[in-house]
């Protein structure tokens, strides 16, 4: 589990309920990785590409986000429909920039529109999971996601280069 310990999950989701459900079910499925959550695409972009300012960005509880350099291994869970900057834009920027292109991105959204799925894959998303409304199926999806997160192997020594 050494790898799993180092893998942090970045959840970009505007709906608090969804974020809570995703985190709880991942935890219940036995995943204990670190969680970072952004409420919209703009926050996420600021975190990944913004200037390294003195006071690190904080989450709602006031806890400071872990610095970018410590997140050697990242997995991004990305919602598509968000205010300000949507998931497509975040995905595009992440896959565009060479330093973040290798970060696995799992699109987790309510949309099952084939065109949007196709667009996500075109933009370079690694996995697309449709948030099922039926809870059991959702848990199964998240479990599979957790399993995926546990087995994911990232190249050692890969660091997110400072901008």
């Amino acid at each position, binding site marked *: 589990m050494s790898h799993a310990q180092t893998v942090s999950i970045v959840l970009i989701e505007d709906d608090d*309920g969804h974020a809570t459900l995703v985190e709880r079910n991942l935890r219940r499925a036995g995943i204990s990785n670190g969680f970072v959550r952004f409420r919209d695409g703009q926050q996420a972009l600021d975190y990944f590409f913004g200037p390294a300012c003195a006071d690190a960005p904080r989450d709602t509880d006031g806890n400071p986000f872990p610095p970018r350099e410590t997140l050697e291994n990242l997995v991004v869970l990305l919602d598509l429909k968000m205010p300000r900057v949507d998931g497509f834009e975040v995905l595009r920027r992440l896959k565009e920039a060479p330093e973040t292109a290798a970060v696995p991105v799992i699109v987790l959204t309510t949309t099952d529109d084939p065109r949007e799925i196709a667009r996500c894959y075109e933009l370079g998303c690694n996995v697309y999971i449709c*948030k099922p409304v039926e809870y059991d199926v*959702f848990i199964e999806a998240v479990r599979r996601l957790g399993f995926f997160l546990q087995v994911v192997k990232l190249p050692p020594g890969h660091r997110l280069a400072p901008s």
Partner: protein
Amino acid sequence: MKLFTKGLLLIAVPSVVELALLGIVFDTQEQTAQAAQWVDNSKQILYQSSAIVDPLLRQAARVRTAMVTGDASLIDRRAVWVDLSDRLAKLDTLVADTPQQAGRVHNMRRAIDAYREQSVAISQALHERHSLSPYLALETGPLPQQVAVFRDELAAFGAEASRLDIERSIALAQRRESQQYALIAAVLGSMLIWAATAIVFARSIGRRLEVLTENAERLGSGRQLAAPLSGSDEISALDAVLHQTEARLREAEAEQAALKAQLEARAHELAAVNDELRQETQDNEMFIYSVSHDLRSPLVNLQGFSKELHVSCDELDGIVASAGLPAGEERRMKHILDGDVRESLYYLRTAVARAASIIDALLRISRAGRLEYQWQRVSVGRTVDRVVEALQGAISQREAVVTVRDLPPAWGDPAAVEQIFGNLIGNALNFLDPARRGRIEIGALELEPVDASEPRAVRMRTYYVRDNGLGIPAAYLSKVFRAFQRLHGDVASGEGIGLAVVRRTVERHGGSVWVESAEGAGSTFFVVLPEQPIRL
């Protein structure tokens, strides 16, 4: 004037003139003939007058001889006198028209009569041997006195007759000349008259007929007609009719053009309204899509957290069981947890599941209208085979017999076509009558004749899915293609949107769908799809 009258005039006027000319000719001819007769007459007079003198002279000679010889037999020749009398009578008839000459003839007769009496007296004297002396005195001259008188009269008569003869000959020559002139005038006049008639005919009928013919030709070729013909005959009447017809034609043309313009305007309007409707339908579908999509997000929370509550209830159960609470309190807590809370959660979760399926149905409907089609030639036969294969489980479970006939290809989106037949065949399976062996038949109708004159007409194929299932009551036939209409709610689950999706999909293909059904006997769904690319 009527053509008949004109024709009559054209014949009558020259004929009258001809007749007049003929009359003149005949008149001059008659005059000439009379003149000729006169000439002939006078010649005869001359002849007779010259012939009459000789017998008289011979008689006078005989009388003298008789007187000399005393032989009376020389005088007694009555024939001479009869001959003379005849000749005088002939002359008398010949000169009856000229009283002067008649008078002369009369004088001559008297003279002869006197001489005859004298000669009779002489003869008597000779017979009776009387003295001839009283008569001798009378015979002393070269000619007896009466004969001399006769001769003088005859000479005067002859002179007058010659004069008349010359006069009449001249008159005859003049008449002959005038007759010639009259003939020439008649011939020339009739030629002129007929020429004039021909000109009048050409001007008043021939040329007008030409104009009429040209007008008719112009009318036929749609050109402007010449000015209306004047006059009041049948030709101008016909021309007036032609002009009326032209006016009517122009009117009709103008009307037609106006109607055409109107029709085009209407067509444009209709196209605009159609576009608007299509746009509106799309907007509606977009609206349904975004609303149902937005509703999904809270539903995820509702369902997720009701499950969380369920999990919490389980945990509470465990805590309550292990807490060792007093029996009464534990029972009350269990009652609340198992009864009220779990019951509430159950209803909550079924409601959420129902809402979720409705939203899913809405999404499916809106997607049927929004999905981008990959237009291509679709083998309907293979598509139906795939659908039947996918439904094989349900088919064998219901022990239904599915017959697939020859299915011609269609033009459309393969996935959409598959969805159409999937829905129809799935419906047919779902609503089979359990009381009898299910039979489902998929086929295509004969190709309908296409109006070849309409170049934009697209050949359409009509497919059908026929079953011997429960059938649809007539009252519900109009509703089957509407969304959320569920007729046999107890027989099959679903939101009742399958046929609505089929209709929307078929309409997007430019086709149509309808159903014929008899309750208790089965239903036949007809689907019309284009066979060639269609311009929507």
